[in-house]
């Protein structure tokens, strides 16, 4: 089962994967990102931050969606990581059983659209209006959605953040 779907533009980094995977007691981490899956060097550098006691797979969006929809995924305990709000929305539409979406870290390093900067919503959350729209669509699926960078932070409901 999917314990958490997390949006983090840095995917796996520093203590984050370790803390979240311990906090959720997962036995799998699945990173869905086309660029990383197709680039060996990026894959390997992401693996440096992987906890040693959890299996980590880095796949394309499509491969990852297939893994998550596989009936064998039900008996696993999975933390899913994606890089963009669009990817979160794609998963909400293609995968069943996502009960909680965690917005952990987005908008500081994501590529700019044009010359405008993103707007600051929280310490680790910057968004363009177009991305706010995507998040609204995520919220419309009815899924619980919180801004929370680390498990020690208080979960901050996203529906209040993007009034």
């Amino acid at each position, binding site marked *: 089962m999917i314990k958490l779907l997390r949006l983090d533009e840095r995917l796996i980094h*520093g*203590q984050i994967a370790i803390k979240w995977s311990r906090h959720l007691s997962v036995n799998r981490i699945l990173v869905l990102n086309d660029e990383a899956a197709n680039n060996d060097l990026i894959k390997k550098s992401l693996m440096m931050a992987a906890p040693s006691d959890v*299996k980590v797979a880095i796949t394309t969006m499509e491969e990852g969606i297939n*893994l998550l929809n596989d009936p064998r995924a039900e008996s696993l305990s999975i933390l899913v990581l994606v890089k963009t709000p669009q990817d979160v929305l794609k998963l909400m539409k293609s995968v069943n059983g996502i009960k909680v979406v965690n917005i952990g870290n987005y908008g500081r390093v994501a590529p700019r659209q044009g010359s405008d900067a993103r707007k600051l919503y929280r310490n680790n959350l910057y968004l363009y209006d177009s991305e706010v729209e995507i998040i609204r669509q995520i919220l419309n699926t009815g899924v619980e959605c919180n801004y929370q960078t680390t498990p020690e932070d208080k979960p901050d409901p996203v529906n209040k953040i993007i009034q």
Partner: protein
Amino acid sequence: MVLLKILVASHGTFASGIKSSLDVLLGKSDTLSVIDAYIDQNDFETQLEVFFQTITEGEQVILLSDLYGGSVNQKLALYLTRPETYLIAGVNLPLLLALMLNNEPVDEEKIKALVKESREAIRIVEIQSNGVENEDFFGGS
């Protein structure tokens, strides 16, 4: 809740440098104080006294220095007669991070364990695993 206080002291600005890294990683904190020794007219021993004046009786204090054989460490060592006081020389960022993330009171055992882990944090980087192939995702526990 601040359980203990940490002081990093160094020759020059290593101490405030390592603090600035921590601020990036964890955000600012009241737990950590720093002393950059020997960079201005301030007397290091006086700066140390000032730090200990902010400590309440019985409060746990972890002192961290840059070099075991250095005078900074030697002066810190004089405070080991105070109860609940620990001194570690050769601080690195992983150790400081682990200490800041610790949320229980410490004791000898805990300090030993954290120091041991921090030694392993200095490591040669080799490009390693790719993660599991898709089928293996379902195998094992």
